[in-house]
């Protein structure tokens, strides 16, 4: 969706500001938000794109005025309610009021190291050969889906070149909607600066995105 998260090319935010000697966390609650997100994700009830979609569906004014862990907290609360794990009243009161849903699994403390080390690989067995080859000219589709997508607005309808075939990867747009998992070929597509930003752009710059096959058509 064309939400506030799709920031590439927006203006008015000012210079990038670094924080000297930045700590890993700025408050205790940030640590707990990170940990609850990781542990809740391990229940297996939603995909990584499902939780991204929950964060992206925050109203733009809220998204842009929230810190990153505030966005994570709001997104997690939203998906937990949407999927029936908790009720808004329970979130208010901080205690169970309704029967619990049975999660597919619960990550135990002694499993954390192994689960994080293994991760959740996204490559799948391909069912068909890749449509595009390295060096092919492609054009990204123009689309504005209401649902989650990983094709940023600044890179829609643009001509680029396939630089690399990454593999056959889980397709985010459907997974985020809770639909059965599918996978598509994933490519690194490179665009020149002027193709993306017009003739005034730096001709010695280029930008690549990772694009799933259905985002692309032959140029």
């Amino acid at each position, binding site marked *: 969706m064309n939400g506030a998260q799709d920031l590439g090319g927006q203006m008015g935010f000012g210079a990038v500001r670094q924080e000297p000697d930045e700590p890993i966390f700025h408050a205790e609650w940030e640590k707990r938000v990170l940990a609850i997100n990781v542990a809740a994700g391990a229940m297996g009830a939603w995909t990584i794109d499902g939780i991204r979609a929950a964060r992206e569906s925050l109203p733009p004014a809220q998204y842009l005025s929230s810190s*990153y862990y505030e966005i994570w907290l709001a997104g997690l609360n939203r998906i937990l309610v949407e999927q029936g794990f908790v009720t808004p009243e329970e979130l208010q009161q901080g205690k169970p009021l309704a029967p619990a849903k049975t999660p597919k699994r619960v990550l135990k403390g002694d499993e954390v190291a192994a689960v994080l080390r293994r991760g959740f690989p996204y490559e799948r067995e391909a069912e068909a050969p890749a449509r595009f080859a390295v060096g092919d000219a492609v054009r990204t589709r123009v689309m504005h889906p209401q649902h989650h997508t990983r094709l940023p607005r600044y890179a829609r309808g643009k001509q680029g070149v396939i630089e690399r075939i990454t593999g056959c990867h889980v397709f985010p747009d459907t997974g985020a909607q809770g639909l059965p998992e599918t996978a598509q070929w*994933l490519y690194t597509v490179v665009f020149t600066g002027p193709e993306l930003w017009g003739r005034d752009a730096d001709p010695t710059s280029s930008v690549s995105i*990772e694009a799933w096959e259905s985002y692309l058509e032959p140029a």
Partner: protein
Amino acid sequence: MSGHHHHDHDHDNHFTPIEARVKALESLMVGKGYVDPAALDAIVDTYETKIGPRNGARVVARAWTDPAFAARLKADGTAAVAELGFGGRGGEHTVACFNTPDEHNLIVCTLCSCYPWPLLGLPPVWYKSPPYRAKAVIDPRGTLADFGLTLPEGQRIRVWDSTAETRFLVIPMRPAGTESWSEEKLATIVNRDSMIGTGLPRVQESQRGTAS
């Protein structure tokens, strides 16, 4: 373990509103049996003490000193970093982006905050914030200027937008004057920003001309 109290005083007045909301969520998630408090503590401990940019620095230093490793890293980043024991959540698929005299690499995630967690740890706030995510793709040289970095004349710039589950690690060029250095000493000059592309490795004056 952090010694964090999981059930105390959820709505006491000394908590800020955000602290109270997080405590309420944690109590609820534990109370409903969805998360194990020990797992929460183990996750925090992992990202606070076990994973950080020193992991990525080891990969870079190995690539600088072992041409066969550098070739494997270029061909299959995921397999090569696994040789050093790195990989997993937030870095399941790794691609190494080698800087050259002709081209400098810069990593961003315009849509969220994708970042190679197993190699660099959690991202700094600026990496996750609108100014960087907005500017890196449209004005990469201006973005580098915000970091005090100006590229040599003639060096192109390539920006990688992390729109999938592939994670990118910049392999900076090895600074001149470090030819006699050990892999361990080289790792000390590979800072986090040099592996994102917003910085370069820096040799301190005190380190110059000394081997080992």
